[in-house]
C-alpha cells in the first residue's frame, strides 16, 4: 500500500451556536493516497462538507473549532500551522472546488486575474510565467479560446464554463490534492458528465489526488477508487467502490442505494427512500447515529457506538449487525482473519 499523502486522524469538529454546540464531525479518520479519487458520500447535513473544509481550515472560526484530532499533510500537521504556513499550504499544496460555480467566482474580477491570484504568495515566478501558466491551465480544463476567456468576467461564462474555471483555480499551482465539494450538483446532467470526465482526465495527466464530496452514488460509481460513507458526523462504511456496491455491509449504504433510480430498476418498482431525518447534532445519540432510522435496529444500537469490523484491507464498517451474536442479515460479511477489530 502506498503512503498516504494526507491523513485525517480522529477529527472532532464542532460549531458553537446560541442553541448549544453542534457536533458536526465526530471522530473521523481517513487517508488520501497519491493519485487516487476518494469519494465521501452521505445525505445533506451529515458532516461531509464540514469535514472537507476542515482540511483547509475554511470553516469560519469562530464559531467552528477543532475539539481534537490531527490532519497530516506529508507528515506536517495542518492544525499546528501558523498563518503564513497555512496560506502557503492553501496556495500551493491543495485546491478546493466549491459546489456552486455561479456564486464562487468574484463577479467584479476578470477570470484571468482570479486564477493568477493563486500565485501571489509565490515569489519565484515572473508575471509572464504566471500568465503562461494561467492560459495553459485554462486550456487544460477544456476552455477553448483561453486568451478571450482570460479577459472576460464570470457573468460572461456559462455554468459549466465557470466550474471549469473553478477547477482551473484549484489546479493552477499543481497541488497534490484537490477537494471537490459536490462540484456537479448545480449543473445539468450533460455538463456533469463532462466535468467528471475532465476530473478523471486531469488525475491521469497531473497525478492529482481528488477528494470527491457528493450525495450522488452515481457520481461515486463513475469516478471514485475508494469510498467513505458518512452519516451523523461519523464514518459508517468504507472500502473500494466495488466493495461498497457489491458487498454492502451497512444498512445506511444499502438505504442510499435503494433510494436512487437505476437502469435496472423495474418499471413498477418503487424507489425506497430512507424514512426519517438525520439525527440532531446538538445532542447526537449515544449509540449508532443511524439507529433511529434503521430497519435492523437492535437494543444495543441505541446504547453503544458500534465497533469497527474489517472485511478486507480496505473494507470495514461500523455496525453491530456484524457482531457474532447479532441475528443473521443480508449485511453479514466474513470478517478478515486476525484483524476483526481496529
Amino acid at each position, binding site marked *: 500500500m502506498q503512503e498516504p499523502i494526507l491523513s485525517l486522524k480522529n477529527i472532532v469538529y464542532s460549531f458553537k451556536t446560541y442553541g448549544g454546540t453542534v457536533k458536526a464531525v465526530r471522530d473521523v479518520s481517513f487517508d488520501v493516497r497519491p493519485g487516487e479519487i476518494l469519494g465521501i458520500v452521505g445525505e445533506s447535513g451529515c458532516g461531509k462538507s464540514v469535514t472537507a473544509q476542515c482540511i483547509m481550515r475554511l470553516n469560519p472560526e469562530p464559531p467552528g473549532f477543532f475539539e481534537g484530532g490531527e490532519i497530516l499533510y506529508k507528515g506536517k500537521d495542518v492544525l499546528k500551522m501558523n498563518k503564513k504556513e497555512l496560506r*502557503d499550504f492553501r*496556495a500551493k499544496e491543495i485546491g*478546493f472546488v*466549491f459546489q456552486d460555480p455561479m456564486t464562487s467566482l468574484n463577479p*467584479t474580477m476578470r477570470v484571468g486575474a482570479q486564477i493568477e491570484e*493563486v500565485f*501571489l504568495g509565490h515569489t519565484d515566478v515572473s508575471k509572464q510565467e504566471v500568465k503562461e501558466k494561467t492560459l495553459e491551465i485554462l486550456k487544460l480544463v477544456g476552455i477553448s479560446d483561453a486568451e478571450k476567456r482570460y479577459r472576460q*468576467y464570470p457573468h460572461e461564462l456559462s455554468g459549466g464554463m465557470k466550474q471549469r474555471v473553478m477547477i482551473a*483555480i484549484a489546479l493552477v499551482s499543481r497541488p497534490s490534492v484537490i477537494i471537490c465539494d459536490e462540484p456537479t450538483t448545480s449543473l445539468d446532467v450533460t455538463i456533469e458528465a463532462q466535468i467528471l470526465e475532465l476530473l478523471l482526465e486531469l488525475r491521469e495527466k497531473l497525478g492529482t489526488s481528488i477528494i470527491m464530496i457528493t450525495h450522488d452514488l452515481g457520481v461515486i460509481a463513475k469516478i471514485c477508487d475508494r469510498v467513505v460513507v458518512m452519516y451523523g458526523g461519523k464514518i459508517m462504511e468504507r472500502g473500494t467502490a466495488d466493495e461498497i456496491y457489491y458487498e454492502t455491509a451497512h444498512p445506511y449504504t444499502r438505504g442510499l442505494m435503494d433510494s436512487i433510480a437505476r437502469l435496472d430498476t423495474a418499471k413498477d418498482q418503487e424507489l425506497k427512500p430512507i424514512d426519517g431525518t438525520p439525527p440532531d447534532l446538538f445532542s447526537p445519540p449515544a449509540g449508532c447515529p443511524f439507529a433511529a432510522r434503521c430497519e435492523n435496529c437492535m437494543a444495543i444500537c441505541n446504547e453503544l457506538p458500534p465497533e469497527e469490523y474489517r472485511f478486507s484491507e480496505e473494507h470495514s464498517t461500523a455496525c453491530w449487525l456484524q457482531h457474532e451474536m447479532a441475528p443473521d442479515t443480508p449485511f453479514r460479511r466474513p470478517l478478515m482473519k486476525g484483524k476483526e477489530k481496529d
Partner: protein
Amino acid sequence: MAKYIIKRVIAAILTLLVLVTIVFFLVRLMPGEPFTNPKLTPDVAANLRKYYGFDKPLIVQYFQYMGNLLRGDFGYSMHYTNKTVNYIIGQTFPFSADLGIRALCLAISFGLILGILAARKRGTKIDFFCVMVAIIGTSMPDFIIGACLQYFFGIKWGLFPVAKYQGFQYTVLPACALSFYTLAHVSRIMRASMLEVTSQDYIKTARSKGLSEVRITAKHQIRNAIMPVMTILGPTVAAVLTGTFVIEAIFAIPGMGKYYVESVSNNDYSMTLGMTVFYGIFLVFCNLIVDILYGIADPRVRIGKR
C-alpha cells in the same frame, strides 16, 4: 454608452420640465404675495406687480418664464429687487459647494473606513464604537452637533474659529458638522454591505487560494460591497453641495441655504423657482454620474458594450 447617456439626458430634461411646471404653479398657490412690505404704497406695489408681469394671465407668465429659463435666465429676485437670481446663486453657491465638497470628502472617506473596520472587527469594541458613531450621527440633529463643536472646539479649547468663512481653519468645524450625518449613513450601509459580502462563496474561494485577509478585504470585499453606498451618494451629494440652511446659519456662512429657505417665506417666486431648478439639475446630474460609476464598479451592469 453614448446612446445610453443621451437617453438619460433626455429623461433628465423631461424630469426638469415637469419639476419647473409643478413648482411654478405651486408657489402661486401659497398664501400671500411678494410685495407685502407695509412701507410700499399701493401705487408702488401695483407698479412692481406690473413690472414683474403679474398683471398678465398666469399661463402667459408661465411661457414667458420658460422662455427665459431656456436662455438660462432665472429673472430678478422679488425680495432683493435689484439683484438677479443668477447673481445671488453665483455669489452664494461657491461657499456652499466649497463647504459641501470638504464635508463630502470627510464623510465618504471616514464613513467607508469606519464601515469596513466595523465589519472586519465584527462584535469587538471597534465595531461597537463604529455603530455608536453611526447611531449618534443619524439621530442627532445637525444644529446640536454644530453647537457642540462650536462650544468645545471653538470656545472651550479655542482650537478653531466659531463662525465666518475666511480661510482653512474656518472651514473645519462647519465641514465636520455637515459631514456627520452622511458619514454615519455611509458607515452604516458599508458595514451591512460588507457583512453580507463576507458570507459570499467567492470570499471562501479567495481564502482557499491562500490570500491574506487584507488582500481579501481590499480586492474582493470592498468593490462588491460599495454598490449600496453609491446608490445613496447621488442625492446626498446634491443635497450637501447646494447648501444647508441650519449649518450655514449657525456658522454664519454666506451660502445658498439661507436664500432658499427665506425665499419661501418671502414669497420670492423667482428665487424659489430658480433655486429649485438649480438643485434639480444638480440632483439629476449626480444621479447620472452614479449610474455611470455603477458600470465601472460592477461589470454586470455595464451597458451597451455589444
